[in-house]
């Protein structure tokens, strides 16, 4: 090990902390993105023209906001949102400081994913549920969410994976984590073993998430 990964073995505690930081960013921002994205995705679906709670104004406003944030490159969002991050989280660096930009960067993406997952629910199912006396809220959780469980799980998988990419990028502005670790040692000091190990960790992380997502999505497909 010493010979194969000389630089990494000397910095093991730092490496483990970087892994932990990445995981922490992923979990915190992921949880917030999941809740907000799900809510926005549902609002888009039901307020859309022809939706069960059709509302032109809400739909148009939300649609435009989501498009706006999706078109800003994440690296710009990271710096642009620093003041907001300081206001909400008290800091613009470390794990705490990067949660706000991560949420702003990935929520619109996840909301769109949820919207397209829910759009796969056949209109007939919604109509049948309404004909049986379901209220719009019942239709949301008993038909839309329940019947699109598999596509929603796939949307979560994709979002977690792209979020992993964003957390690595966040490393560049002082968030810590694996991205930061790889840049500081692997890139700046040309310690190639560190670059490769970080890549290996990220690849296996992505694979595990992908495998779990596919497993649960399949279990919910009949």
């Amino acid at each position, binding site marked *: 090990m010493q010979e194969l990964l000389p630089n990494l073995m000397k910095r093991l505690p730092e490496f483990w902390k970087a892994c932990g930081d990445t995981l922490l960013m992923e979990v915190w921002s992921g949880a917030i993105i999941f809740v907000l994205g799900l809510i926005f995705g549902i609002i888009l679906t039901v307020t859309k023209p022809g939706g069960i709670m059709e509302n032109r104004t809400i739909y148009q406003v939300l649609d435009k906001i989501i498009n706006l944030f999706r078109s800003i490159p994440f690296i710009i969002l990271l710096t642009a949102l620093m003041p907001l991050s300081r206001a909400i989280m008290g800091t613009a660096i470390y794990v705490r400081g990067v949660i706000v930009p991560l949420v702003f960067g990935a929520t619109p993406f996840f909301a769109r994913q949820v919207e397209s997952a829910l759009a796969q629910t056949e209109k007939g199912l919604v109509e*049948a549920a*309404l*004909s*049986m*006396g379901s*209220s719009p809220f019942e239709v949301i959780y008993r038909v839309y969410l329940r019947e699109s469980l598999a596509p929603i799980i796939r949307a979560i998988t994709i979002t977690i994976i792209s979020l992993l990419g964003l957390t690595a990028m966040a490393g560049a502005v002082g968030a810590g984590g694996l991205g930061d670790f790889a840049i500081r040692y692997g890139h700046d000091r040309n310690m190639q073993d560190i670059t490769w190990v970080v890549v290996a960790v990220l690849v296996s992380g992505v694979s595990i998430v992908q495998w779990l997502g596919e497993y649960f999505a399949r279990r919910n497909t009949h």
Partner: protein
Amino acid sequence: MIELEHIVKNFHADKDKSIHAVDDVSLTINDGDIYGIIGFSGAGKSTLVRCINLLERPDSGSVKIDGVEMMSLKPRELYKARTKIGMIFQQFNLMPSRTVLQNVAYPLKGLTRDEVRQKVRELLTLVDIPDKENAYPSELSGGQKQRVAIARALANDPTILLCDEATSALDPQTTGGVLQLLKDLNKKFGLTIVVITHEMEVVKNICRKAAVMDAGKIIETGDVFEIFSSPKHPVTKNFVRTTSNLSKIETLIKDNSPIVKVETGQVMARLVYIRADVSEPLISYASRAFDIEINIVLADVEIVADSMIGGTVVIFSGDSERIDRAIQYYIDKNIRVEVLKDARVTA
């Protein structure tokens, strides 16, 4: 009783274009009726039936069910009222991620797990698929899916069942089975059934009364037998014609087919039964009584609303005056006679 009064429903496709899906329709459907609403695609039938449970809210008009004005119900009251109006669809609309049991249990509320299970089993027995409760919809045939949908629609013991093209996705044999089930439910529970269809066969098979819709308006209503035996509106005539073999004769005549060739002295005529009680041997009687030959070219007789309907195309040959007397005899017997070809030499 379902009372629709002056229902208007427009759809706005573009800014200044609007489609009159339902255009001032009034209709009364009595308790225990099996009522058909027929029309070609796009006539507005599906929109009209959705106005009954307010899946489509009419732009104006009144929808009364058992005297209660549906349009003025608060949302909660409307959801409750809808549980008493079952609905089934052409595409069945079963929830694919739920088993048959879970699908049928969907509208059931406030029952314990055991009560739900028992109720679902009763319903599945009623629709004759008691052994499918753990199957997923994807494992069922079309007919079985529609039976599950019927069980689900009946879960809250509704008094009305709306059927939107419920058999249009099924093959003729399966259609027969589902229609028989609907008939049985009507008889057993006095269920009021509204049947939307473009298939005349369905209306003939189960409806007692029907309305014909075209371009958002109801153009003819009445007993199904009346509509079939003496349609008044051109669209209805066209509709009835498409289902009867007797209309083939026109094509045959146009194509100069050898089977409709008429020799000199012969008369070809279409005899259509317009009364509900044809039981006499009309052909053989006339043939003997007037001493002429009556040759049946084409016949199409079927049962509509428990009465015979249809007629025959025949060729009379024999003495010219006797043929006239035979024709007069049929007219007296309330049979509509249309002379299609007359090859008698006029003196």
